């Protein structure tokens, strides 16, 4: 299907000057208040199951993309809700990151509209590509401050034939050592929940070997703050409040906001220079601080 609006129509809407902000479905914070708003094209343009790739407009709802891929037994490793572009702009992965990898690794090619209102392509349509600098990764997690995503080509993955959540009170490190490539490992300080995927017999055999009990669902995730810790430091969470930590990854869903993190001045300076190069007048999503 064609994208609506087209890439060129969207670029014209962004235009070359004046503050402008991009909106999706507002599930991850929404656009900047009081600024002219644009919305990225919608539509799943091209599903290529034998290439394991899909091309879609950045404004496409994640659920719509997921449904289009489900027909072919495939999926993309982008957490549910909102739009594809919004998920990429925020760059946060879901609780299956341990198995599926981070959101940034799903992106093969992007087209974005730059601060001059031009369409820029980065990356390439194939599953493997090292042609030029990897601007795709720069766009993921940039919150629309360097360019507005218009259209993306994503790597898909096969849906597993079987999946099951389990729970155990064994120590986290024991479970981490014992399981072969679990999709998710969550720890609340007492219990470890794990999601196993694959062949049903393999899943059952792993669960039995490790003494896991089936669970209906993963635990409820506290929503007070999203912490990012080196996974080797998760043991230090004891006594900080209610949390669910992603073992082997380091994301912590916590009842409290994350502690302040120092910013290296050299990294801050690189951010300033990159923003200046890509958006010299600061017109794209003005006011959003990314560091």
């Amino acid at each position, binding site marked *: 299907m064609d994208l609506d609006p087209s890439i060129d129509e969207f670029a014209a809407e962004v235009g070359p000057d004046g503050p402008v902000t991009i909106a999706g479905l507002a599930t991850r914070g929404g656009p900047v208040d009081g600024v002219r708003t644009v919305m990225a094209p919608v539509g799943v343009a091209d599903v*290529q*199951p*034998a*290439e*394991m790739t899909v091309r879609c407009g950045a404004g496409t709802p994640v659920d719509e993309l997921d449904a289009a891929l489900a027909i072919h*037994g495939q999926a993309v490793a982008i957490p549910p809700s909102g739009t594809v572009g919004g998920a990429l702009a925020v760059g*946060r992965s879901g609780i299956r*990151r341990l198995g599926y*990898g*981070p959101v*940034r*690794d799903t992106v093969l090619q992007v087209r974005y509209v*730059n601060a001059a209102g031009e369409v*820029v392509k*980065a990356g*390439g349509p*194939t*599953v*493997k*590509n*090292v*042609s*030029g*600098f*990897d*601007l795709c*990764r*720069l766009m993921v*997690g*940039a919150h629309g401050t360097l360019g507005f995503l218009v259209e993306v080509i994503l790597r898909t*993955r*096969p*849906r597993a034939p079987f999946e099951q959540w389990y729970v155990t009170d064994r120590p986290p*490190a024991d479970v981490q*050592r014992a399981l*072969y*490539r679990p999709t998710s490992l969550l720890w609340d300080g007492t219990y470890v929940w794990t999601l196993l995927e*694959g*062949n049903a017999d*393999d899943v059952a055999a792993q669960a039995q070997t490790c003494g896991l009990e089936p669970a209906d669902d993963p635990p409820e995730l506290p929503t007070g703050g*999203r912490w*990012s810790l*080196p*996974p*080797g430091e998760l043991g230090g969470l004891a006594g900080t409040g209610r949390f669910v930590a992603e073992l*082997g990854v*380091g*994301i912590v869903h916590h009842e409290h906001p994350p502690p302040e993190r120092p910013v*290296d001045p*050299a*990294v801050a300076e*690189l*951010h300033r*220079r*990159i923003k*200046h*190069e*890509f958006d010299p007048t600061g017109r794209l999503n003005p006011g959003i601080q*990314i*560091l």
Partner: protein
Amino acid sequence: MIGAATLAELRAALGAANVRTGPTELGLYRRDASNMYGAAAVVCLPESTEQVQACVAIADRHRVPFVARGSGTGLAGGAVPPDGAIVVVTTRLNRLLSVDPVNRRAWVQPGMLNLDLSRQLAGHGLHFAPDPSSQQTCSIGGNVANNAGGPHCLADGVTAAHIMALKVVLPDGTLTVLGGDDPEPDGYDLRGVFVGSEGMLGIATEVCVRLTPNAPAVTTMLFDFATVEDGAETVSGIIAAGIVPAALEMMDNLCLQAVEAYIHAGLPVDAAAALLVEVTGLPHGLAADTERIVEIARAHGVRTVRVAADEAERMLLWKGRKSAFGAIARIQPDYYLHDTVVPRAALPGVLRQVYEIAQRHDLQVPNVFHAGDGNLHPLLLFDARVPGTLERVHQAGEEIVRASVAAGGVLSGEHGIGLEKRDYMPLMFSAVDLAAQESLRRAFDPHGLANPGKVLPSPATCAEVARVPAEVAEQSWI
């Protein structure tokens, strides 16, 4: 070209023995495994992060270009020194700094060899997944610079997916950490842009790598086909069935003949193509995948199916794949190896064009490549002693690159752009696209001192594909 003051400062920082300007060293470091060369002014052999930082700070102070170099196995000229450059060799920074076997990550120095890392981790049942064919000799720092691939990247992803954080010396000599060993560092993904930047954004001095558990079980199969199309459709069929093998490698007829004459492994020398398929995982899923893969191959007219019965047979099947380059040296003394990627569905059509191009230029071009991700590796065989041959090789190579891009593919899957494909970049990217890449480079390196002249075509050469100085590679890998 380089000033006496610059040299004196380098010697003071590194010790005179680690700063080389003799003709032997300068000759040794004027090229990588490609067929291009430059002219270094001085070769530095730092032994610590601080010494790397000193080299870069001195380069910045005197506005002298510098280039980081690992093992020099790159095939695209990425480590070829710009004229008058300081070469910063990382081979002495080759230690494993720390390992966290539970959370599966390690900090390593950039000069550590790829295979050495996996060997040192064997006791933990872990390995570093990217496995370029040069893995015995290529360095982790080089893997980072080129975003290296390898046969097993089909399932596990290329280097970028395995790098968590990088301690880097920026082009102005500042030391900082990009990314983090936590999963969501604040800010832009600077780690992500550094990987694959071919030494143009700074020098990595410590690398935090993600480790992959060794597979509990593995099955390796060899199929052969009467036509390349049957083999390629089998590849597409496997992927479309929701199976992502650990590796999916193809050899064409010319390659099979050469390899069989060399190793006598019982390879099907009358086949148009052979497909090496490896699946890994837990036993039940492995058995189901193997059965399904054989069914798919049968549906596409496979002639013979060989499933390795034991580790010895598995090694023999892989030996065929890995001996390709040694075998090919028996046909002609020289080869030029290309690296492009096309959509899997375009493989048969592009291979047909490769054969036509080879015929037109009177060249033998065997193909051995990563079929699973559409990553072609045509080997243009020739004898450089025959006058005019190299020109035909370059012309044919350019036509192959153009055919790949025209089929919806890309310039390089794993070797990088370097000098070799710099002037082809406009085939894939518009002036606006390239300007965006230039902006990133400027943000990191306003004075353009880190490995200048690579990857990004200068505006003057944008309009036409220019030649780079070339001589003949003695040895290279894919």
